[in-house]
């Protein structure tokens, strides 16, 4: 498995395999040192070294040019003539994911909630395990290392279950996300050429593009791991059915949001320490979560917006509940309203996430506000949009069925039902898929 993972990664760029090995060896060694050490001060120094090395690697490869560029902009705006050179740095694929994975390992060993792994090959396999290497999910050592210590006999049930996940992932990625991609690209590239309704459709479609792209990748990764006998858990749980932003973040990119909660928000103090500290902790967590996604201020703004949503929700939710009770509004109506509200506010955030700059985001927002120029006939690619909306509708129906029945999966679990489901997925991909070779969006993170 280790050899397969290394070949898989080297296929993209063999030079960065050494970075993977470096990261693995550093955290493997620090893990053992942390476990053996009993002096708290020394242990603290060791964990600081681990965090510094991990964040140093991430900072150099992912954020060096961003911070240098931002510093240059600030200097120039202050009238200082500064000459900052940027470097031609290639962003290693999956670096944000495997750095978080190794960092959480050493923190767990430091907290003594995880035993240090003594087998270097096993530890390296944990770091480079190919299904999750390039775009997650961020599977923690506490879940993965015990599985790597076990033997894995072939299981028919696991294979069928894994293939089902892979098939549903391909439908989301190839049939839905990649069909939507060109419709979204053209709207964000030239907002001035589209009317308000067309831009609004572009934003809605992007919400489903990114969801289907990333949840599709996650399904494929989790399914592939399951075929090999590994359990990664889930990474998405019908996030657009969330009734609050805290619920949204417990359903969207679960492995990242739980990582941020356990290794950033709670260590910062979490909800303890009063309202102001709670607001600071929430905002800081979400701003850094935004920055994790990419070296751009638009990602920071996206994170900040979600931080603000989470803060506001804490203050508004009790009043909202009182109003609902006083007016005797039925639960389903309240839930439907909240689902729509959370979805639309999430879409507002996606504008910043997708926009190439703040100017681009502003163009989208002002374009959508120009409601005087709405003509259905002026919307380009109506046929393709309709096709995408139908597919999104079918996806939501499947998710709603599972959501309302509170089942984990919408598909029956018997092997024959799964066979029929996979065959149907192949047909859907064949007839609706886009085969233009689009990358997964999260590969860039």
């Amino acid at each position, binding site marked *: 498995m280790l050899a397969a993972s290394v070949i898989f990664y080297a296929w993209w760029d063999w030079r960065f395999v050494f970075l993977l090995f470096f990261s693995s060896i550093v955290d493997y060694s620090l893990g053992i040192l942390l476990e053996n050490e009993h002096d708290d001060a020394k242990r603290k120094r060791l964990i600081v070294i681990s965090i510094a090395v991990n964040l140093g690697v991430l900072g150099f490869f992912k954020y060096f040019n961003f911070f240098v560029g931002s510093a240059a902009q600030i200097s120039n705006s202050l009238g200082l003539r500064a000459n900052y050179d940027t470097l031609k740095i290639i962003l290693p694929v999956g670096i944000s994911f495997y750095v978080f994975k190794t960092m959480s390992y050493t923190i767990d060993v430091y907290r003594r909630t995880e035993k240090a792994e003594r087998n270097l090959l096993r530890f390296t396999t944990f770091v480079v395990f190919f299904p999750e290497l390039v775009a997650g999910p961020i599977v923690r050592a506490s879940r993965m290392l015990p599985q790597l210590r076990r033997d894995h*006999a*072939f*299981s*028919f*049930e696991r*294979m*069928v279950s894994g293939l089902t996940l892979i098939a549903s992932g391909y439908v989301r990625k190839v049939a839905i996300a990649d069909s939507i991609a060109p419709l979204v690209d053209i709207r964000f590239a030239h907002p001035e050429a589209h009317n308000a309704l067309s831009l609004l459709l572009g934003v809605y479609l992007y919400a489903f593009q990114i969801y289907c792209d990333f949840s599709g990748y996650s399904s494929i990764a989790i399914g592939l791991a399951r075929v090999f006998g590994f359990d990664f858990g889930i990474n998405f749980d019908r996030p657009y059915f969330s009734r609050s932003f805290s619920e949204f973040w417990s359903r969207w990119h679960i492995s990242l949001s739980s990582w941020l909660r356990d290794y950033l928000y709670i260590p910062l103090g979490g909800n303890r320490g009063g309202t102001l500290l709670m607001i600071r902790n929430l905002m800081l967590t979400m701003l850094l979560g935004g920055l994790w996604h990419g070296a751009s201020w638009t990602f920071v703004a996206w994170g900040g917006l979600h931080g603000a949503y989470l803060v506001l929700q804490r203050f508004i939710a009790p009043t909202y509940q009182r109003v609902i009770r006083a007016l005797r509004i039925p639960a389903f109506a309240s839930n439907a309203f909240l689902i729509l509200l959370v979805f639309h506010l999430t879409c507002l955030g996606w504008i910043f996430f997708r926009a190439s700059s703040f100017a681009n985001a502003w163009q989208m927002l002002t374009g959508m506000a120009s409601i005087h120029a709405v003509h259905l006939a002026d919307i380009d690619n109506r*046929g*393709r949009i309709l*096709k995408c909306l139908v597919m999104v509708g079918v996806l939501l129906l499947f998710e709603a069925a599972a959501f309302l029945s509170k089942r984990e999966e919408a598909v029956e679990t018997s*092997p024959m039902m799964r*066979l*029929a489901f*996979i*065959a*149907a997925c*192949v*047909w859907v991909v*064949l*007839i*609706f*898929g886009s*085969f233009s070779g689009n990358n997964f969006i999260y590969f860039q993170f």
Partner: protein
Amino acid sequence: MSDARRAVIWILALVTVTIAGDHLLAWGLEQVLVRSQFRYSRLYRGGNNAEILVLGDSRGVHSFYAPAIEELTGVRALNLSYNSMSPRIAEAILLDYLERNRAPKIVIIEVTCMHVTGTLTSELRTYASLSPRLAALYAEQHPVAARAARLFRLFPLNSEFFLEALHYMRRSDQDWIHHDVMPASLRAQRGGGWNIQPRPENVDALVRIVRVLRERGIEPRLIIAPYGGEGVPVNLELVADVIGSRTGVRVSNYGGAIADLDDFADHVHLNERGSRVFLSLMQRDGVFGMTQPPPRF
């Protein structure tokens, strides 16, 4: 039964069900496809009796407005042009048409598509099961996808053409034309001066088309439709000369025939009004009338 044996049986069943279902679904969708009023569905269904046939790329689509041709001439016209159609594809389309339908009297070809590559073949794969010629062109341009299309028959139906066919199930697509007028931003644009670079394989295909038409007693009309303002290629006369000498048919060059930019949707496409003006010019020049023998260059 061991898990490995169960897995083998299950995978075999999956492959069988997938391919059988694919063929069954594709068969059903192909029945829908050939019943459409979309131009190529009509072509492959057969039974058309147009007297004037039009071939070309998007300039062919928007210059030769079929309803206006019928109004002017009183005979049936069928426009088989499509965006990015190269003469090589037009050749396959024409030969297929002649095999399945009554031969037209005149075939109008908009010849500025000489520089177009075969990008449209990926769309025409939808009809590849009905046309060995299109299948061969598709296999030449996309060998891997063509092999996939032989295994999975749903794959060729994954196209813009299939969506068009569904859209035109109950009504004709012959009314395609721009209705809008060239916007001010385009009118203000300067810096034309571009050249058409005819591709040798396209010129060869056009020569073959003309030969086939003459052998069957069908009159070829090689036309250059009008360009608007800055859109006129610099070497238009030269291109007309080259094509005329290679095919032995005089090219009617209307490249600069219409000066009013209100007749254009952009620099290279007429709108409905412009198309009507252009067609009346062609009528005046006797392009729609039969001339025997065909004019020699």
